[in-house]
């Protein structure tokens, strides 16, 4: 059974090989830092794995098109499989799609694995896959990945293969099929029931209550033999950070997310759990509305960029679990990361200089923050405000309610806080949040040269030219862009010593790419 990780692309598209390889490799780089150096112990079946997650609400939905936080993501990974999985090392791994291939990058053929069944006993067929993808397409779809899959013009089943046709060639399509929103679900009359818990994953739902807990038992017919070690999984929504810590310390749960950096040292001192700190491309930022004065003047934007202490923010807000970012949404884990850009340091004199260039001697701005944007955003705002004062910039920190932050503040207020999970492919990140007119272009920044390069790079075949283009785009975003990005944040989780983890943990999303439930085992 061959697995064409690098499909044989025809003529011009052949050089897209590199694109795909890269696309796979970028999500990698998820090595456990010194913190979590556990020797791999023999994998063994059994045990109940209890996970405490800092998300979850009674209004959560089973509909994968509406998933947006770690609780539903992990719950989904327990009971569902995807066409393609992102391996711990960032390579694409065949899951329900046994292999995939394309001749021109525009028409893709996925061969569906035979002999896999849903929990209900029904076989997984190509029709199920078609229905699962179609759930996120079409006018009536409410799926959040609708824009992402908009380039798909047709999906059809052909025997045991699924044929996907695109508007234009895109070598990243297999990557899109790993998106956590697009699990393979059973089709009934050509469409999926989004409220059903039936899936073909390693665990069968026993009971669940939204915003409280979900209990799952191992799927005895699971097709993967070296996965899903636990007998039972219990997912608990524990919103309060202290309650999560307590639950881990008292042994009520084995794994928690969002560990408060301030308490990491003390937690390690207890000797019951270890910290896993996984660097990815995720980053925190402060977008400024480039259409509005004073942010329409790049001198003002630069003044603000030199007025914050990035090192201190990494130390204090992330507790050291992250890295300094140079206003660049492309992270060190990305293939075309521009590492040689001039680093911006905290420099009040330089900030003042740019203020003068803008014809100002002082500046008053208001920064809207809430911890809903990212954990520690309010503190980060307070720190920013403190360091900026030395440069004659008065930042009034306006703490807004967490509730409704993304709908009422983000992209509404002209200076606020933001968070991005990071994207594995440069094009994906730039197209989503920096291209002119993009739905989520949070800073409303438009730069002709940047947009020109973005289009050109997508179809550029020469590796070196492409690299240069992406470097120039990063330079533009960093020094002319309208988003201040001070830090890349690691995924930080704490795991009980009763649990063994593989040597390598995926940097593709939190919780080992949500797959901790099937990749980890009882120590």
């Amino acid at each position, binding site marked *: 059974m061959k697995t064409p990780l690098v499909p044989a692309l025809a003529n011009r598209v052949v050089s897209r090989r590199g694109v795909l390889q890269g696309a796979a490799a970028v999500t990698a780089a998820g090595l456990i830092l010194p913190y979590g150096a556990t020797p791999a112990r023999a994998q063994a079946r059994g045990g109940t794995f209890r996970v405490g997650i800092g998300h979850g609400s009674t209004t959560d939905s089973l509909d994968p098109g509406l998933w947006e936080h770690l609780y539903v993501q992990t719950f989904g990974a327990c009971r569902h499989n995807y066409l393609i999985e992102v391996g711990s090392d960032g390579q694409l791994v065949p899951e329900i799609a046994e292999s995939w291939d394309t001749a021109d990058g525009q028409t893709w053929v996925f061969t569906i694995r035979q002999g896999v069944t849903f929990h209900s006993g029904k076989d997984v067929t190509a029709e199920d896959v078609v229905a699962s993808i179609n759930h996120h397409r079409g006018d009536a779809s409410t799926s959040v990945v609708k824009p992402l899959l908009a380039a798909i013009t047709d999906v059809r089943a052909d025997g045991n293969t699924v044929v996907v046709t695109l508007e234009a060639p895109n070598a990243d399509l297999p990557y899109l099929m790993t998106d956590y929103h697009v699990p393979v679900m059973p089709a009934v009359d050509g469409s999926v029931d989004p409220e059903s818990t039936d899936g073909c994953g390693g665990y069968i739902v026993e009971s669940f209550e939204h915003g409280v807990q979900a209990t799952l038992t191992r799927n005895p017919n699971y097709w993967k033999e070296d996965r899903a070690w636990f007998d039972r999984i219990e997912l608990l929504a524990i919103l309060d*950070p*202290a309650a999560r*810590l*307590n639950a881990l*310390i008292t042994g009520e749960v084995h794994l928690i997310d969002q560990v*408060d950096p*301030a*308490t990491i040292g*003390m*937690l390690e*001192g*207890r000797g019951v759990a270890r910290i896993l700190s996984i660097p990815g491309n995720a980053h925190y930022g402060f977008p400024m509305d480039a259409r509005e004065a004073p942010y329409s003047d790049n001198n003002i934007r630069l003044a603000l960029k030199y007025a914050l202490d990035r090192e*201190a923010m990494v*130390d*204090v807000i992330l507790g050291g679990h992250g890295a300094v970012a140079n206003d660049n949404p492309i992270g060190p884990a990305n293939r075309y990361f521009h590492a040689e850009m001039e680093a911006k340091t905290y420099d009040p004199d330089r900030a003042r200089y740019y203020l003068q260039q803008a014809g100002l001697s002082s500046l008053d701005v208001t920064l809207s923050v*809430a*911890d*809903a944007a990212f954990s520690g955003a*309010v*503190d980060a*705002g*307070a*720190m920013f*405000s*403190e*360091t900026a004062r030395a440069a004659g910039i008065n930042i009034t*920190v*306006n*703490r*807004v*309610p*967490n*509730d*409704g932050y993304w709908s009422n503040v983000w992209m509404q207020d002209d200076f606020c806080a933001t968070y991005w999970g990071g994207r594995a492919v440069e094009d994906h990140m730039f197209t989503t949040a920096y291209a002119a007119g993009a739905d989520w272009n949070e800073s409303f920044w438009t730069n002709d040269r940047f947009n020109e390069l973005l289009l050109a790079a997508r179809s550029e075949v020469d590796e070196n030219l492409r690299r240069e283009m992406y470097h120039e785009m990063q330079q533009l975003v960093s020094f002319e862009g309208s988003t201040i990005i001070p830090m890349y944040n690691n995924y930080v989780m704490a795991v009980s010593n009763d649990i063994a983890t593989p040597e390598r943990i995926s940097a593709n999303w939190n919780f080992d790419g949500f797959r901790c439930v099937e990749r980890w085992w009882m120590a």
Partner: protein
Amino acid sequence: MGFAASIILGLAGLFALAWVLRLAVRRALTGHARSIANDMPLTAAFGILVILIYAIVAIAAPALAPFPEREIVGGQFQPWSAEHLLGTDRIGRDMLSRLIYGARNTVGIAFVTTALAFVVGSVLGIWAALTGGWIDQALSRFVDALMAIPALIFSLLLLTIFGTSVVTLVLVIAAVDATRVFRLARAVAQGIVVMDYIEAAKLRGEGSWFLIRREILPNAMAPLVAEFGLRFCFVFLAISSLSFLGLGIQPPTADWGSMVKDNATLITFGDITPLLPAGCIALLTVAVNFVVDWQLYRASGLKEQ
């Protein structure tokens, strides 16, 4: 347990100081004032002393605090040292300075809020009791309806709608508290309005405002004062609970309720940092209520022992 010992020592010291203060006051005063002071139990003296200290700290905060309220002066969570007596907080601001400024902000906000709630609540309550009829019914039913909605959730709703500036925070908490005060004031006033002297005043042709101000309010003072003592302290807790739910006072303003919340996870590891602001709130609560108890006791006319 050096910490527990220092707390006990500190409290004992305050009591000793209170005893000295009472003695000094007794010496200094004459006549009626002196007899009041003579009756004063040690707890009340303690309460007055603590309130005085808080007031001085609040007023003289800029002079007392070693560092500015908002300035980052050191690393994160530095231990207690000669330079930073109580260490530093989450982003490296001096803890002691934050506590001192917190006295000013927290006590100030709590006082304004409670005062507002009492003025509105008691005036409306007494007016309702005095007027009776449909005004009384309408006001009471409306207040009942508001009280039937849990306070925290109601505040959450209002703050989400109106935003979280200090002014809206004060207004929202005052509005919620005023409903409670209204009920109490109305209940107390209902017992008073049937008294003969009120009838007499009415026959004299006095207006409602005069009756409320000169006849009813003075006689309803005792239970209202008692309620004031508790409500005053509940404002800290309300702010604290609201910041637990992600609303509360704007940074970088220091207030004790938010400071408890910000450092609360540390208590999981037995770290006493969050006990400092919580202790400040507790001490003031106890002090205020000691004084209130003494006033109630005097008002009750129970003079045994």
